[in-house]
């Protein structure tokens, strides 16, 4: 480690997007690490940071500060080093960070984004890997690599930094047209857009060529696993079936806690597709309730939705899936208004 690297490691403000990388950075000598842990690929996002922070806490039913990015305790002094893996969860967070640092007046020359490619598992995965990466971590890489990258770090060119800020702006926009265009056409330097779109598109209802409105792929999987038998969300997640395997791939991005939220949203919804009853462990999340599929739910699964409002809305970035007010559905041409 050169003296410059040591100095940068100690003096810089570091940003990390997973729970493991902060430990690695502290071990390597950093003294200030900001954790930005939120999984922004699911749930609402807003352009205004204060409003964004508020809706995120509400989305996760939490008062816990997983995400320190907007913390008033942080003194944002340059240089800022952003450590980001290939996980699409982290990439969206990277756009947010670029936007935030610009808002607080940091010049792009003072921000060093250190990109880390995905490391393929050395062993044999127990289940097929998803077509998107939501589990990579900077800490997957050896310390030497981290230090090498830090030693060679340079600020992004202004245009690239601008594009990151723009992507956040597009992602939180109530009109997703620009963002969809970026995903479909691609943006130089942001290869995450393809796999990200692959993931996001699973969250929107589908309009078939015949005009039938079908459940989103994620909801279809839930409705395939649910049955007449009561199941806890944990049992749904652990379901030993092809649907279970695919569901776990999507949940690697959303986090397991989202599963119970989605089931609860369905149970609360007036359509009556999903029934809920008290589980045996009222004190434990994901086992405190059990869920089952009603005849209505089976019809939705097999024949499609009569109308968009028959499903609970699901916020994603600046828009909502299934919301009659923003009726975006997946069709042959991509995401289109119904």
């Amino acid at each position, binding site marked *: 480690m050169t003296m410059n690297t040591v100095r940068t490691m100690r003096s810089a403000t570091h940003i990390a997007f997973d*729970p*493991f990388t*902060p*430990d*690695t950075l*502290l*071990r*390597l*000598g950093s*003294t*200030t*690490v900001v*954790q930005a*842990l*939120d*999984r922004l690929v*699911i749930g609402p996002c807003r352009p205004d940071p204060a409003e964004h922070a508020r809706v995120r806490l509400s989305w*996760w039913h*939490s008062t*816990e500060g*997983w*995400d320190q990015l907007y913390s008033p305790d942080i003194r944002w002094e340059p240089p800022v080093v952003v450590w980001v893996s290939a996980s699409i969860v982290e990439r969206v967070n990277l756009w947010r960070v670029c936007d935030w640092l610009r808002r607080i007046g940091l010049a792009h020359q003072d921000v060093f984004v250190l990109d880390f490619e995905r490391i393929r*598992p*050395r*062993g*044999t*995965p*127990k*289940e097929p*890997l998803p077509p998107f990466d939501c*589990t990579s*971590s900077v*800490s*997957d890489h*050896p*310390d*030497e690599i981290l230090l090498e990258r830090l030693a060679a770090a340079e600020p992004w060119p202004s245009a690239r930094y601008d594009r990151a800020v723009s992507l956040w702006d597009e992602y939180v926009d109530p009109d997703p047209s620009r963002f969809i265009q970026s995903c479909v056409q691609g943006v130089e330097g942001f290869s995450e857009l393809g796999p990200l779109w692959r993931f996001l598109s699973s969250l929107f209802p589908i309009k078939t060529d015949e005009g039938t409105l079908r459940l989103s792929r994620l909801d279809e999987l839930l409705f395939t696993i649910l049955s007449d038998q009561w199941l806890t969300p*944990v*049992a749904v*997640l*652990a379901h*030993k079936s092809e649907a*279970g395997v695919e569901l*776990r791939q999507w*949940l*690697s991005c*959303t*986090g*397991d*806690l*989202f599963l119970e939220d989605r089931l609860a949203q369905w149970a609360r919804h007036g359509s009556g597709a999903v029934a809920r009853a008290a589980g045996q462990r009222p004190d*434990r*999340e*994901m*086992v405190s309730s059990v869920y089952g599929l009603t005849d209505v739910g089976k019809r939705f699964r097999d024949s499609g939705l009569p109308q968009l409002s028959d499903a609970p809305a699901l916020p994603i970035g600046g828009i909502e899936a299934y919301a009659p007010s923003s009726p975006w559905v997946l069709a042959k041409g991509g995401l289109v208004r119904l």
Partner: protein
Amino acid sequence: MTSRLGQHGRSKLARRLLAVGLTMATGYTSGVLTLGGCAGASWPSDGKLPDRMVDKLTECGKKGPTPLTSVSYDLAFMVHVAEDEREARVDEVTLMSSTLHISEVETCMADALYGMRTPLEALALRRRNLSPGSPVAPETRALLGQAQAVQLLEVMALIVVGYAVYTVIVHVLVDKPRAKPRPRPVTAETDEPLQPLPAATVVPTATAVPIVTAVPTVIPTPVGKSCTDMYVDCREKGPPCDRKLGGKTMCAYCQDNCLADEPYKFKQCTECGFR
């Protein structure tokens, strides 16, 4: 600094299993042979390191990083106590695993443990406990190199320095010059046809390569459990296993590692049902 947190986690597991293996093979359990009653001696008792030792380790911890947020490090040491007819002494302290990677602190802690002196009273007590009617058959003792090694105890200390928490695990073993091995029966004592021994009942023999071969015999692998089964087990355990980290529980992070067949990044995964 080539070792990584996750790799250490697995390595630590293997080594801890070794320790458990030794413990099981010798018929001991930690705590049964805690060496209490050695007042004044710098020696573990009641499953804990003595205060003076904890103080020394804390001083070592102060030489480490001063993080601004909570961060934990795990260190495991093997303390070998050599014994002959006249005396006993700590003759070797080995750092088995560490997630710290700061040699200054690690060496400092090893030196502190090396300072555990005068275990003669302790060993005398051990002899009193073991000699008559000891359930420990000599052939069930594990071997380390040319010495017969018996794990006396395993102790843990939590060292808190600011936001840094060091979990220090110490395995204390007594090495004895190897005695002439007692021949083991090679035939079954029943009329039943010989069957391969179940893995869990295989005991180390005098010719066995000790450490590595001993480990698989005691790994409590939950046969047939999938990663998702272990996720369910993990969620069953509740706190702290279901700790939330940005929309995802620690169990789910452990499951990700398990599914990808990669080392667990949270050291607690194994304590929460993952193997």
